[in-house]
């Protein structure tokens, strides 16, 4: 409990300092939603960064756009739809499940399944080849004959 309190206080200090630096961070509810949404969005300039962590200028502009949409009372889905309609599925870190992205979502499982089938077939074949060979009567007789000599 105490730890949570200390953590909360330190966050507050952070907010107080950040507040001075960025006058846009006025409404904490809006900012929280902004961070939440922008973590799921890709910055298009520095493609391996999320919109929330990127310091690229375009990311700034897009965050401003998202902030405005939040203030305009749009839902998370509506905001994402807007960005997808402008920049394509590429902005989403978690692309929608639709026919075009099926390979992306289910491809690895299909590969796993195929690999599993191959493994099973291989193991079965191996087990068959490892079966102890039974000697026929004629062979047994010949072995005994050889051992006797």
């Amino acid at each position, binding site marked *: 409990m105490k730890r949570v309190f200390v953590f909360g206080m330190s966050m507050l200090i952070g907010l107080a300092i950040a507040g001075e630096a960025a006058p846009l961070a006025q409404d904490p509810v809006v900012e929280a939603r902004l961070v939440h949404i922008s973590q799921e969005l890709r910055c*298009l300039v520095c493609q391996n960064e999320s919109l929330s962590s990127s310091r690229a200028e375009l990311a700034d*502009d897009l965050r401003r*756009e998202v902030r405005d949409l939040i203030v305009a009372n749009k839902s998370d889905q509506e905001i994402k739809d807007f960005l997808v309609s*402008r920049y*394509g599925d590429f902005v989403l870190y978690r692309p929608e499940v639709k026919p075009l992205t099926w390979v992306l979502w289910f491809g690895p499982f299909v590969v796993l399944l195929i690999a599993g089938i191959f493994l099973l077939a291989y193991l079965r074949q191996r087990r068959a080849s490892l079966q102890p060979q039974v000697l026929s009567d004629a062979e047994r007789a010949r072995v005994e004959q050889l051992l006797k000599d």
Partner: protein
Amino acid sequence: MKKVFIPMVFFFGLVIFLAIGLNRDPREIPSPLIGKPAPAFTLVTLESDKTFSPEQMLGKVWMFNVWATWCVACREEHPVLVAFAEKNQIPIVGLSYKEIQPQDPAAKQTDAIKLQVARERSAVWLQRHGNPYTTSVMDLDGRVGIQYGVYGVPETYVIDPQGVIRFKHVGAVTPQLLAEKILPLIQSLGKS
């Protein structure tokens, strides 16, 4: 024979996938705007306080080119655009995208002063390098850029007489791109 065959198929399959995947440009993101109506906007132009909207271009095939004086790749494509404009085939409208960058000293000024500085700077630049644009519109805060999915200046769009975006290119326009993609497209749009 069969034992070699299956790994061979896998191997060549992998080679084909890698050959395609590694030769693609990761910056080239397919635009979802192709085939969609060009987003509407109203902005003042570089030349005067008269405003421009895409709907004024309905009935014409036109090119929309995003540029800025700070953009290095724009300098590279500019002679290509100037030469293209001289042939006078279709109007080219420029989008002066965020002329005043945040680190610019002028960024702290009022909007009116920013607009004035941007206009002066752009006009000087166009005088020096040539002006291929029938008009340029001033997108100082980059909002129209976002509407058009701009993420790397320069970008170029071809818009048909119905106001639908038919083509988008990110990066400098080259003579090759003009000859192979843009001109055939303009011709086919002009006929229909």
